[in-house]
Each structure stands twice: as C-alpha cells, then as structure tokens.
C-alpha cells in the first residue's frame, strides 16, 4: 500500500525544479536536485566495467595499454604520439583525467583536444567573445597545457556534462560542439548517402535556404545520436589546421579518405597525420569513428539511435528515465536490446559474440598483413631500392593502414556495422598484400638489375 502511495507522490514530483540551471552550470552536481535519477546514472560512469571487447576492467589507475596487447598497433604508429601510449576507453567520468594522464601529451598537443574531453563551452564563448565557433578556432593556437590551465582556472573542468547535451531551459536534447555543428551541415550539403538521417534527406530536397542546423532541423530520434556524434567521430586535431571532422563527401571510410587526400595544409603540403618512422610513408590516423560506422549499419538505417542501446529507458518507481550510466549495452541486454529483440539474453550475447569474433579474426589477419608489408618495405630499403620505386608500396601502406586502423579504432569490434567492417578489413588486407608485392618485386628487380620484369 505504501508502495502505491510512493508512486503517486513521485509522479507529481517529476520535473519539479528545485534549483535553476543555466548555460554556465557545467557542474552536474548543480543539476542533481532537479534530476536525481539521471545524475545518479551519470555518476556511475566512474564504476569499472568489463566485457570481452568493451569497458576497461578493474580498478587499475589506467585502462589496459592497447599497444602491449597488439604490438602491430605500436609498429603501425611508429613516429606518432599514439605509439607512446594508447589505451582502452572507459566511462565518461574519466575523460578529462585520462587525457591529462596520457603520455601522448609528452609530445606537443593542441588546445583543441579539449573539445571532446571537458565541458568546454563557457571557455569557447569566452575565447570567441560569445561566439563559440570562433572560440574553437582560437583554441587551436593554444598548447594543450595552456588551455587546460585556463579551463581548470575557470572552474569548468568537468567531463561531458548535462549542459553539453541539454538545453537548460527546456531540457530538450541539443548539440553544442562547434566541430559537429559545422561538419554535419557540410555533410548535409554533400551528396553522401544519408539513409540514417531523415531530416537531412528532407533538407536536401527542400529549399536549402539556410544551412542545415541540427538544433532546429533534426528529429528527436536523430538528436539521440547527434549528441554522441559530437565526440565519437574521426577527427584531425593538431596545430596545422583547426579541429576538423572530415564529412564533406559523406560518412563512409572511403569518402573520408577522399577528403583527407584532397586536403592541404596552409603551407601547401598535402594532408597527412604523420610520417611513418620506419618506412617514411605519409599516413593517416583514424580515431573512434563510432558515429560514422554506425551510420553504415542496419540499426542506424532502421532509426535505432546510440541512446536506444547505450542509454536505454529504465523504470524508476512510477517514471521512466534514460539510463545515464552510458556504457556497454552488453551489461544491460534486457533493456538495451530486448525491447526490440525477442530473443533471450544469452542468445543476444551469442549473436554479438559471433559478429565480434569474426571481426576480431579479420582484424588480426589484417595486423599480420600490415607487419609483412612493413617488413617488405624495410627489406627493400636495406637492399638499396631507390625511393621512387617504393612510391607505390608506400601509397598502399597509407591506404591499407587507414582502413585497418579505422576498424581497430572503432570501439564496437565491428558490431555497429558488421558487414561494412568486414568489407573494410578485406580491402585493407588486399591493399597491404599488394603493397608487399610491390615492395618485393621492386627489391627483386633491383637485385637483378632490371629482371624479372615487374608483373
């Protein structure tokens, strides 16, 4: 009986604002009295979680080092900060401290890094005199340490916070990050396939008078993914160019590669993330393209959003709230999957496992092909093959490495788009082996001075 009574009371309390919150309230604690259930969930992102390929495990100071687990990653990144330290992700609560602790910061990094690791909007507005987009642009001139200090001093040094995804007045979802706002509008303006985004399809056949703006044009179901797309995306973030999400031609790995290939730095040199320390190839680095890979999968194209799986609704007393403990859905199959899928929890876990296992097997196969390619190039160099004759092998290294890294850096081990991930790995493997063939035949031709003719 008391139970019913409690329910009734809670029902009325939903959404009673105990305190007022504003654009500058980056501390989630401030929001807690109004929305205690959401706040409780949010706080739990500090708890350790572990699945076969997800989460970060126990209570160690830092998550596991990917470079130790897969040495071919380290080899692939030689010459770049990622070869120093590259770890598993973990909960949102750690995003700022994990960044600060990374040995990648022993190389000079740009202030733009904070775009996705802190509740940065007030600082952007400050830097841009009210214009956040300008603020972001200015942020790339700062070193990471300088901007981090400014942030700490401003009192906004929190991980992603309520105000980053919610309008404090209406609590509607909204996107705040300038990087995303610009890029999604560029994407809308491209002719890249947009099956997952009905509002972009509509905008494209509509008047196009104003640039596409997710905060006014997107549907609620799209916003449930856009808020995540602010950060879980491929980017360039360095000193040579402002923070860029490369979506001008579409959201596929191939379209993104094409954008990078056509990009030049201010000094006119063609875009690349780094020069590979061993081979000298000018290569790319892919970072967590969850949003992009998801967009190529059947879930996205059926309207299933990130929040559907990673923040499923849960019943708390007499109201339903979104679980703000953003984490692997495999820890919460009942709510995350079974509202849509009738299969048992064991069966859902088995399905994911089959998909991830296939991806993992191909990924390791790709890693072996990459190592063989690097070996072949180095042997050719040792044998004195001139630079020019290795151009093709180096180009193939760039292409293969892009795709292999794309799937490796994506955090769902292929689940977000199983067939597409397998396709990318197949192409990566082909390119790596072709590079190896090119290096081998260049070396053979060199050692035979001209013979056998390269087939």
């Amino acid at each position, binding site marked *: 009986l008391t139970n019913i009574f409690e329910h009734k009371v809670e029902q009325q309390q939903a959404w009673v604002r105990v305190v007022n919150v504003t654009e500058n309230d980056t501390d989630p604690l401030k929001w807690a009295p109004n929305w205690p259930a959401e706040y409780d969930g949010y706080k739990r992102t500090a708890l350790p979680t572990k699945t076969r390929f997800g989460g970060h495990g126990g209570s160690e100071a830092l998550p596991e080092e990917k470079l130790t687990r897969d040495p071919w990653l380290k080899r692939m990144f030689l010459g770049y900060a990622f070869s120093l330290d590259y770890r598993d992700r973990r909960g949102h609560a750690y995003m700022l401290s994990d960044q600060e602790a990374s040995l990648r910061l022993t190389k000079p990094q740009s202030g733009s890094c904070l775009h996705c690791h802190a509740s940065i909007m007030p600082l952007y507005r400050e830097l841009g005199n009210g214009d956040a987009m300008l603020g972001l642009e200015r942020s790339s001139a700062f070193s990471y340490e300088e901007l981090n200090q400014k942030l700490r001093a401003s009192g906004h040094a929190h991980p992603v916070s309520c105000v980053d995804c919610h*309008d404090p007045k209406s609590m*509607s979802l909204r996107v705040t990050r300038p990087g995303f706002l610009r890029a999604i509008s560029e994407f809308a303006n491209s002719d890249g396939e947009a099956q997952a985004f009905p509002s972009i399809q509509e905008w494209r056949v509509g008047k196009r008078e104003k640039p596409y703006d997710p905060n006014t044009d997107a549907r609620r179901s799209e916003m449930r993914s856009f808020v995540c797309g602010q950060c879980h995306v491929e980017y360039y973030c360095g000193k040579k160019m402002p923070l860029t999400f490369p979506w001008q031609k579409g959201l596929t790995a191939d379209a993104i590669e094409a954008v990078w290939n056509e990009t030049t730095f201010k000094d006119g040199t063609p875009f690349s993330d780094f020069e590979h320390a061993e081979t000298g190839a000018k290569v790319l680095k892919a970072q967590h393209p969850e949003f992009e890979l998801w967009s190529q999968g059947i879930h996205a194209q059926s309207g299933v959003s990130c929040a559907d799986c990673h923040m499923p609704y849960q019943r708390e007393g007499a109201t339903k709230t979104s679980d703000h403990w953003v984490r692997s859905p495999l820890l919460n199959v009942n709510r995350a999957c079974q509202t849509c899928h009738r299969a048992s929890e064991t069966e859902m876990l088995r399905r994911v496992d089959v998909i991830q296992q296939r991806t993992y097997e191909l990924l390791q196969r790709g890693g072996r092909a990459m190592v063989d390619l690097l070996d072949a190039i180095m042997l050719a160099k040792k044998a004195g093959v001139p630079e020019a004759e290795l151009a093709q092998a180096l180009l193939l290294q760039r292409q293969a490495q892009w795709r292999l890294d794309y799937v490796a850096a994506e955090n769902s081990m292929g689940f977000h788009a199983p067939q597409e991930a397998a396709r990318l790995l197949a192409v990566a493997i082909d390119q790596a082996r072709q590079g190896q063939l090119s290096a081998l035949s260049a070396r053979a031709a060199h050692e035979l001075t001209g013979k056998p003719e390269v087939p």
Partner: protein
Amino acid sequence: MSQWRKKWALALALAIGIGTGIGAYTFRYAEGLSYFSKDPRACANCHIMQQSYSSWQMAGHHTVAACADCHLPHETIAKYLAKADNGWRHSRAFTTGNFPEPLEMIPRSRAILEKTCQGCHEGLVQGMLSQGNEAPACLHCHSDVGHGERLGLGGPFGSTALEARQMPAHGVKRKP
C-alpha cells in the same frame, strides 16, 4: 456512449459511402456495423482481422486493453470520425480484395496509436514527454505490445509461432 452519437456517426460513415450505393450494402453485409462496438470480437468479424485478434489474445495487453482502446482515439468526436474512416476503408478493401497482405498500417492509424499509448501511460512517460521537442515514438521500441512480434500471414513468428516452433514435422494442416 450515448445513442444519438452512435447514430450520428453511422450517418456520417454511410454518407461517405453512399456515393456508390453498393458501398452501403457491402458495409452492412460485411458487418460494418461492428465498427461501432467496443467488443473486440466485433473487429474479428472479418476474417482478415482474425490474425490480429488471436495474436492480441496472446499479447500482454489483452487483459487491460481491447482493439478500440489502442486503435481509436479516446476523445469522442475524433473516435467516431476515425471509426467512420476505418469502417469505410476496411469495408471497401474487404470487398474489392484490393489491399496489401500482410496489412500495412497507414500513417493516420499509427498516429492514433501513439496518442492512445500516451493516454494510458501518461504518468510513466511524463519525463519523456516533458522535453521541449517532439514526442518520442512509442512504436519504435514497443511495436509488439498489442500483438507480439509482427505477424503478417503467419510463419514461425506469426500467430502460428508456437505451432511452427514446436509442432513436429508431421501433421501439416490447412490453416483457417
């Protein structure tokens, strides 16, 4: 539900249908009048609706909601308009045999469903509805509340789910 409203709605429905005299006959013959009853068996009067009826009986809501609770608006006027609309369209389709099978819900029907879900579950989903922008689509996640998994014409996931999964190979019977 008052007597005069029933008559008023029937008149409206027939008025739409009378254009072709035959419409009225059809409507009556195929038990079109059942559109004006709350009894779920009334919907099942058409064999086309049989599948929906039997799957509804197996789904969670059958103790708390009948067809009309979900498929017709809860506001009186809107309800009768919808009844007339459905009554006419379904009767005509039934007569001509000109409709897709498995059935496809038209957007209007979908919109009604969304409203009736909210009607009963207002308290629970208050938080979801309180956000400034458009309401979430209940059917995106809960499309199986009324009838279980989508049924179509049967097969292992339809009303024959239990049959097909458990029945041994022998004993194929013509389905009604």
